[in-house]
C-alpha cells in the first residue's frame, strides 16, 4: 500500500460520492442521499490516510516534510478541506442538495492532481525557502479559506439556477433549499473564507518576514491574494452596508472564486517567488 494508490482510489470514491449526490438531487431518491454521505465519509477517510501515508513516505525517503509542498499535494489537500467543510455544513444544516455542487469540486481537485500529466506526483525534497514551521500554518489557513470560497461558489451556482432557471417540468429547482437559506449559507461561507484568507495572507506575511526580511513585496501571488481579499471585502461591504442579497451576492461568489483560482493557478504563469507552486 502506498499513498499514490490510496489517493488514486480516493479520486474515484469522491467521483462516486458526487454521482450519488447529483443522482439524489435529480431523481429525488432518498436512499442515494444516504449512500452519498457514507461514500463522502469514505472518501475523506481515504484522503486523510493517503496524505498521512505520504507524510510518512517522505520520512522513509529521508526528506521528511508535511505533504503540503507542491501543486499535487496542495490539490489533494484542497479536496480534503472542501469535503470536510461540506460535511460539517451537511451535518449542521441537513441540506444534502449542496452536496451535488460541492463534492464535484473535491472530485475535480483530486482528479486534476491525479490525472494531469503536468503535475508531478513524486515526493520532492523541500527547497531551502520552504523549510519553515510556517509552511503548515500558511498552507492550511489558505486552503481552508479557498475551500470555504469554493463552497460559497457552489451555493452561488445553486442560487443562480434557482433564480434564472425554468422549473416547469423537472421539479429539480424546487428541491433546492429555500433561497433565504442559500443566501445565508453563501454569506456564511464567504465570512468563514474571508477570516481564513486573512489568516493565510498574514501567516504568509510573517513567514516572508522571517525568510526574506519583508512581510510584503508585491510578488504576484501576494498581490493576487490581496486582490481576492479586496473582492470579498467588497462583497461583505455591499452586503453589510447596502443589504445586497441573493442574486447579486451569488454573482459576487463567482467573481471571487475566479480570483481565488487565479491566485492558486494563474499566478504560476507570472514570474515571481511563489513559482514552487507549479
Amino acid at each position, binding site marked *: 500500500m502506498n499513498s499514490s494508490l490510496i489517493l488514486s482510489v480516493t479520486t474515484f470514491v469522491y467521483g462516486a460520492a458526487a454521482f450519488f449526490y447529483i443522482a439524489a438531487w435529480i431523481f429525488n431518491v432518498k436512499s442515494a442521499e444516504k449512500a452519498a454521505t457514507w461514500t463522502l465519509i469514505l472518501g475523506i477517510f481515504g484522503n486523510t490516510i493517503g496524505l498521512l501515508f505520504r507524510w510518512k513516505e517522505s520520512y522513509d525517503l529521508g526528506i521528511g516534510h508535511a505533504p503540503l509542498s507542491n501543486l499535487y499535494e496542495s490539490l489533494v489537500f484542497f479536496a480534503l478541506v472542501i469535503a470536510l467543510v461540506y460535511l460539517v455544513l451537511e451535518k449542521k444544516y441537513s441540506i444534502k442538495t449542496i452536496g451535488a455542487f460541492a463534492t464535484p469540486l473535491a472530485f475535480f481537485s483530486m482528479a486534476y492532481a491525479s490525472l494531469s500529466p503536468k503535475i508531478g506526483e513524486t515526493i*520532492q525534497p523541500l527547497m*531551502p525557502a520552504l523549510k519553515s514551521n510556517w509552511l503548515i500554518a500558511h498552507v492550511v489557513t489558505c486552503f481552508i479559506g479557498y475551500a470555504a470560497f469554493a463552497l460559497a461558489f457552489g451555493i452561488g451556482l445553486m442560487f443562480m439556477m434557482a433564480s434564472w432557471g425554468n422549473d416547469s417540468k423537472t421539479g429539480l429547482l424546487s428541491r433546492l433549499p429555500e433561497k433565504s437559506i442559500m443566501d445565508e449559507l453563501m454569506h456564511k461561507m464567504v465570512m468563514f473564507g474571508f477570516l481564513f484568507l486573512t489568516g493565510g495572507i498574514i501567516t504568509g506575511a510573517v513567514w516572508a518576514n522571517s525568510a526574506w526580511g519583508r512581510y510584503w513585496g508585491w510578488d504576484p501571488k501576494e498581490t493576487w491574494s490581496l486582490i481576492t481579499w479586496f473582492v470579498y471585502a467588497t462583497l461583505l461591504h*455591499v452586503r453589510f452596508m447596502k443589504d445586497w442579497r441573493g442574486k447579486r451576492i451569488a454573482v459576487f461568489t463567482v467573481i471571487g472564486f475566479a480570483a481565488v483560482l487565479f491566485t492558486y493557478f494563474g499566478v504560476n504563469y507570472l514570474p515571481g517567488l511563489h513559482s514552487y507552486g507549479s
Partner: protein
Amino acid sequence: MSTSQKPSKNLVWQLFISVKFTVIVLILLAITSAAGTIIPQNGDPQQYIEMYGTFGSSLIQVFDLFDMYHSWWFRSLMGLLTINIIICTIDRWPATWRIITSKKFNPEQLLTKKPYKDFKDERTPVDLKPLYTSFMKKQYTVKGVHTLQNGFRVYGEKGRWSKLGVPVVHMSIVLILIGALVGSFWGFDGYVNVPEGGSADRIRLRNSNKIMELGFKVACKDFNIEYYESGAVKEYRSALQILKNDKVLLEKDIIVNDPLKFNGIRFFQSSYGALPPENIEIKIVSKDSQEPSIYKTKIGETIQLPGNSGELTITRFNKDYHFKKVELGQAIEGELRLNDKDPVKIVLPYKYPTFDKMRKGQWIISLEEYDNKFYTGLQVRRDPGIFLVYLGFILILGGCWVIFFSSHQKILLEVTTVAEISQTKIFGSTTRNKMDFKQRIEKMANELKLL
C-alpha cells in the same frame, strides 16, 4: 462657524462615508494591482520598448507603471482608502459606543415580533420561574424578571461588545499601513556580499543605491551549500560573526528562514556567488610536441609563452560563461598575443579543458586549477514598524472573528398559564447569523423542557 462652510464640509464628509466610495476605491485597487502583476515591475527600459512599443512604454514611464506599487497614484489610492476607513470609523463611533455602553433594554420591542418558538409544559409558572431564571443567568446577562398576572417574563442579552469588531478591524488596517509607513521612513533595506573569510562594515541600500555604514563589522567565516541526493539544493548556510573593535559580539550560522539579528538589524541569507580566484594555474601544451607546461599566475598578470613565441595576459574571471547559449560555467578569460599576429581573446572554462583546442592554434591552453571561493549575499534590513504591523495582524484576525462569529443577541422567555397548562414563548433578536440563532433557540427549547 460660518454657515456657508458647513455644506461643503458635509459634502466631503458625505463622500468619504459613502459605501459607494469604498467600493469604488476597493475595485480600483484590485484592478490596478492586477495590472501590476501583468506588466513586469522594475524591468529593463529596453524590455518595455520591445514589449509595448515606444508609445506604450512612454505611457508606462509617465504613470510609473514599471514600479506602480510605489507610484504616486497607487499610494494616493491607498491613502484614499485609509482616509475613508478613518472617517467612517469616526462617523460611526458615537452610535457604536452608545450601543456598547447602553444599559437600556426594551423588552416590549422583542414582544412586537413573532416568537421564535413556543411549547407547553406541565409545570406551573411558580415552579418554572427559578429554573428559567437560573438557566438564563448561565448564558446571558439577565436584564429583568417580571411577574405577570398568570406567569412571568425573564429576559437578557449577550454580545453587546461585538459591535467593537468593525472598528477594530478597520483600525487594524490603518495600524498596518502606519507600520508600513514607519518602516519605510525609519527602516532600511540593503545588501552586502561578504567573501568567505572576509568581512564588511558597509552595505548598499536598495532604493537609493547609496552606501551605508553599519557601525560594526559582519564577517563570514564560512559559506556552504548542502545538496540532496537528487542534486537539488538542501541548504545554504553562512557562518556569520558580528565584530566591533575586533571583538566578537555575536556568532551565528544563518540559513534561509533563520536570519541573524543584531541591534534591530537582521541579516538574511539571500544569494551567493563565486569570487574571482586569487591563484590560477594555467596549462599550455604545444600542438606539435604535446609537451605540457604549467604556469602559476594571477588575474592581470602576463605569462611569457615557451620559446618566446608570444605572451598571454589573464584579463578576468567569468563566473558564468555562455558559448552559443550553452552554459559552460566558470571560466578565465585572457588575451593571447603571438609574435607577428593580432591579439586574440581566449576563454578557458574550467569544466571543459579541451575548449581552447577549437581555436586550432599553435598552443592549446587550459585552466588547470584555481582557488574556488564563494561570497555570501546578505540581505540587510531594519524595520522599526514591524511591531505595529504585527499588532495590526492580531487585531484584524480577532476583529474578523468577532464580526463573523459573534452577535448581539437578546432573548426573552415568557411563561403564561392557559387552562392550567404553562405556555412558554421564546422571543429574541440577533444582529447577525439568523440561522444559527434559530438553531440555538431550538436547542434552548429542548433544554428548557428538560430542566
